[in-house]
């Protein structure tokens, strides 16, 4: 005798991205806070010391924001023209910024007026940074030069004029106080050592370099330019480790997370991609409204701040960790209850009675087992099931159809229930995996409730919605068929060449199309 077989819920391969630990981690941010700046945000820098304020450089101002403040807690506005690249020193007390007029200013974060001004660049300075000994500043300017400054005396120590185009990015090594790199629009990244007169290493990126980054270990170098993000091994003399091409517009900024396990890249294509630094695969991706110029991540990944070309600053805070203890109000039986008698070894004369395993059936299965079709349908039209697991609802509908009782289960419902049903159908009928069943359901509903159309405004609205959804889907399918036709002609031209390799391609391509076609 067979036991009751529960309804088979068709498990579909998840559409879209697969849920991984990373997606869960990077999804754990609250809805973003948008702050409007005066111009394009070219640099965001987090203070390395608590409370982790961050400096935002936009237009001719530098705003310092607190962690949760939406208004700047401090503003540096002593710039005649645009300011660039406000960067914190390691101790978080000094801030250096370049500017359009070629002057580098050094601020104390508690003061207002600049402490020092470094003059020497003849063109705008887009890149400023502190070396790790805290007493020197390096800079890169549009006059093709990279300079090194002494903070106490405010004098230029050395000037390297090796780049042949604007120097737009740079980074100092955290391991060696004398080493820094700069990237330039001449497609190269150069490594300088303050102790020598010329660059130590030149790396050919192949595109105008927009951003460079050194790993905390100092061994790996990341450069971004064009659509590429490239990783180089500095210790092997600048060997290319990996070249990533995941953006379809210029990559403008790079950022490492605090653990150094993930690399973030922002691009003009409005995406921030997160790579694993072990496999260099994209593990997650954020989508923004406009092109991204700068991105920064606070220590412990608490906050992601993204600056965009239209001057909008997008701030996302991490959700607080959910505390499970609160949700588990119901007291579970003690551990002892579960292990009671488990360790008992049956003696030889003991007679063992095996207890049959109790099968837990879902509510709709219980109802279906006793042939209560209408109630079973009610059970799966409960909002939690209907919203989160529509495949269960559809599977039960299919089972009812198979039993020939779907019509009677759908009939005899009041306005509210019909509304609920129609909302579900109108929303899900275009999903390819549900279409065959839901079309039947929609058909039956229209048949059954045809006489009462016009009696309820809510139901009428739902019917119109359904019509609209189906109309849209038909248009979409027609378009798809057109595309398929076009591709068929393309493949037909391929086959004429009678090339083995091409033919293989063709067959693969064809199957793929057939498979995608099957999905629709």
């Amino acid at each position, binding site marked *: *005798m067979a036991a*009751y077989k529960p309804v*088979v819920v068709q498990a579909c391969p998840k559409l879209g991205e*697969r849920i991984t630990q990373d997606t869960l981690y990077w999804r754990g941010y609250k809805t973003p806070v948008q702050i409007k700046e005066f111009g394009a945000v070219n640099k965001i820098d987090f203070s390395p010391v608590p409370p982790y304020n961050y400096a935002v450089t936009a237009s001719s101002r530098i705003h310092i924001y607190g962690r949760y403040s939406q208004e700047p807690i401090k503003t540096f506005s002593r710039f005649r023209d645009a300011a660039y690249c406000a960067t914190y020193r390691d101790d978080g007390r000094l801030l250096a910024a370049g500017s359009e007029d070629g002057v580098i200013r050094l601020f104390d974060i508690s003061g207002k007026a600049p402490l020092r001004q470094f003059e020497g660049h003849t063109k705008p300075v887009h890149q400023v940074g502190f070396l790790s000994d805290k007493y020197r500043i390096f800079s890169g300017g549009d006059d093709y030069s990279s300079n090194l400054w002494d903070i106490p005396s405010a004098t230029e120590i050395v000037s390297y004029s090796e780049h042949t185009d604007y120097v737009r990015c740079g980074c100092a090594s955290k391991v060696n106080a004398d080493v820094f790199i700069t990237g330039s629009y001449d497609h190269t990244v150069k490594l300088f050592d303050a102790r020598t007169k010329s660059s130590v290493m030149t790396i050919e990126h192949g595109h105008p370099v927009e951003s460079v980054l050194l790993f905390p270990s100092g061994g790996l170098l990341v450069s971004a330019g064009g659509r590429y993000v490239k990783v180089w091994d500095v210790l092997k003399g600048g060997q290319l480790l990996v070249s990533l091409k995941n953006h379809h517009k210029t990559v403008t900024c790079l950022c490492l997370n605090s653990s150094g396990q993930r690399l973030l890249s922002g691009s003009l294509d409005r995406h921030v991609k997160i790579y694993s630094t072990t496999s260099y695969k994209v593990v997650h991706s954020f989508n923004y409204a406009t092109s991204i110029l700068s991105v920064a991540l606070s220590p412990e990944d608490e906050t992601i701040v993204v600056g965009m070309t239209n001057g909008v600053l997008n701030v996302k805070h991490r959700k607080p960790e959910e505390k499970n203890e609160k949700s588990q109000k119901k007291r579970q039986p003690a551990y002892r209850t579960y292990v009671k008698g488990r360790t008992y070894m049956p003696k030889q004369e003991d007679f063992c009675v095996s207890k049959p395993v109790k099968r837990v059936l879902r509510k709709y299965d219980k109802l*279906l087992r006793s042939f209560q079709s209408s109630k079973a349908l009610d059970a799966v039209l409960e909002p939690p099931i209907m919203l989160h697991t529509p495949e269960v609802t559809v599977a039960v509908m299919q*089972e009812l159809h*198979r039993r020939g009782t779907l019509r009677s289960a759908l009939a005899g419902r009041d306005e509210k229930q019909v509304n609920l049903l129609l909302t579900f159908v109108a929303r899900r009928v275009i999903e390819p995996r549900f279409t*065959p069943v839901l079309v039947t359901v929609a058909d039956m509903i229209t048949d059954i409730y045809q006489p009462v159309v016009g009696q309820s405004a809510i139901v009428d609205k739902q019917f119109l919605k359904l019509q609209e959804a189906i109309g849209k889907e038909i248009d979409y399918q027609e378009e798809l068929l057109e595309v398929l036709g076009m591709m068929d002609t393309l493949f037909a031209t391929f086959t004429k060449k009678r090339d083995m390799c091409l033919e293989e391609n063709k067959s693969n391509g064809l*199957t793929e199309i057939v498979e995608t076609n099957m999905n629709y």
Partner: protein
Amino acid sequence: MVSPGALRVVRCGGSTLRGARAVFSADSYLLCAAGDFVKVYSVSTEETLRLMGGHADLVTGIQLNPHNHMQLYSSSLDGTIKLWDFMDGIPIKTFTVGSKLLALYTPASAEESVFVVIPKKGERDTFQLVSVKLTKGAGQDLEAKDLSVVLDGVGVSMKHIAFGREGEYVVSVKDVNLQVYFFKRKLLNRFSLSTVKTKGGDNHFSCVVCHPTEDCIATGHADGKIRLWRNFHHRKEYTYSTLHWHHDIVMDLAFSMEGSRLLSGGVESVLVQWHNESSCQKDFLPRLGSPIEYISMSSDGALCCTLHTDNRITIINSNLRFSRSIQGLIKSRDVKTGLVVDPRTKALVLNGEPGHLQFYSLQSDQQLFSLDIVQRQYIHQAGLKQSDLVKVAFSAQGTWLATVEESEEVTDPELQLKLWFYSEETQSFKLNTRINTPHDNHITDMCFRDMDELEDDSLILVTTGRDCVFKVWVMVEDSDPEAQQSVSWSCDFVGSYHNYQATNCCFSEDGSLLAVSFEETVTVWDSLTWDLKCTFCHPPGNIRNICFGRLTCSKYLIGATDYGFLCCWNLLTCALEWSAHLNVVVLQPDPLSEHIAAVSWLSKESSLFVFKPNEPRPIYIQRNLCKEKILLAVFVPRDEPEIISSEKYLWLRRSQLFFLTDTQELMTLSTKSLEERLTPSSKQLAVEGSLPVTPFSLLLGKHRCQQAQEDIDLGKPVVRHKQEQASPAVKELLHTPAHVLPSASFLCTIFINSLLISKENKSAEETADEVEMESEEAESDSDEEDVTEMEQEDTSHMELLGEMTCKLSKSQEKELRKIRKTDYSWISAF
């Protein structure tokens, strides 16, 4: 050996069990009418113990002899009633009645006569119940022409007539009429229901049973109602009450022995138990698998069994708990999968229960297991579009199983292709990949290619569909480490030919070529590059079957067309080698030899042709293989090649040919004669002298039993003799070289003594038991008894060697005393 021409068609299984209600014998055997045979099953082990053949046609009724519970009456369409001793499987008597017998009743009250249903002479479709006087005669074959008509115009089925309390009256139902005939008063009462069709359906009678102790008749109706009739002695004042649960026809009813419970069953495959004839108290045993055809109760009321339409017997406890089921070849509605042999178990695989695949063992005539493919609750209701299994294929080593299921809807078949992997741990198939809608239309054929299973990439599955394409499926490694399984299947290639429907596919033996038939054309593809190599056709007519030759004939491709042509193409010359005019229904190559079997269907007879592709002359022809149309055939490899002397039957050496007819009977060809085939199956049934064993009878009867046993032992000493030789003393005596032995006269006494002593052991043991039962004096339990026995034997050895024993222990002394008491009279027989 057998003479040529003695190739016989033998039934292997699958014969319908639905001839009559099953009968429980008094001692836990179950008797069933199965086709032309009566089968005896053991209730406790589900085993088929005996097959009693002798009737020339379908057995229509079996009943125990009410005066001797070891005998069984059976009636058949061949017009004979046979009396069997089912313990030994011997027909005792055969009574020839002369006309077709459609049902048989043996009420206890009727002395020396039985009741049968026979067609009325001169009128078609009218039947009468007659009583047949069974003449007492000396011979085996007797004539029973003494017929007297009891009732006219009765139903044809055995369910339409029932005998009432102590055989006082007989009830018959037909259409909407119920008639009761009282034997003593010679009174016939007729009652009829209105013929108006009610909402639920018509109220025709479908079955009738009588209460065993009261005057009450229960009738089942086609609309699912059960009516309980009382007071039917009066024509007018009769009453009936109605029980209604079934939504469809009530197939059978059965009262329990006391009459307090009524069991009913029908198409819903739910057994309903009604208590005290009230409609509120009922129990259900749902999901019995298939519609219930007959219900029968055992005479002690402890068990009941249901016979199902798919030839399954379910045995159910008295508390309505499923006990066990006896299932041979399950009869499915339609064997769409064809006959397939599981390479692992050598079992025959075909459609079983709806949505299941049955693995049927040919050796034991038992179902090995049933694999649930569709995994959906089957609703027993007419007119539903159920999805069922249509195609099945095994890979060469049996590690992969591919199944196709589709719903019956014509327009939107809702196809699913499933691939199952045999898991060694659980010893069963596990679902690996499920592909929804593999083709846009019905799948027509499916086959695996695998030359060597060690290389996984050689495993390829090809499906052909009516959507004019064939698809090639391959295994792909899943790159994702988080996935549960490492391999899954996906489509690799889609091929088509001029937009014709693809109908058949077949791989050559080495797997290098794939033949796919597209309506009239056979196309041959290279399985590496999927290039079309060549095409063959033999117009007019679509290709019905194709297969490649094997071994030495692997260069040939055989095809059969709709228009009745069998063609053989040479793949090297790409030309037609030969063709023959033959309406081939089944084309089946033997996997172990070059032979190909073709079964043709011409002018209502099936003929078998066995040929080798390299020569157009068949090796073997058998015309008129069987009466029914043969739908499917398969070669099953033998475990070890059979020794076949005749040149003509050499093709049967490596494998055996099985075929399935349209009545779903499984047959095979055998070179052995009837006697040879039957001998291994005839086992001795254990005779239990007493009637049903109850705890009380156990207590009471044990003593009696023992005495009887003792008598038997003493009565048949010679039987024991053989076992005695195993005793070490005797062995020693017999195996010692003759020249070291003392003279025979000296040994004789010792030899006889040794026999005596071991004999005593037996009886001593029994007497000890007896002592133990009867009084508390017996302080020694059986274990101790064994010990003494051992010692006893030791001493006997010592005596043999001529050495004196030391002091005897107390128990030994007791033993000796017993020995002295036992009877030695039987020695005089020596």
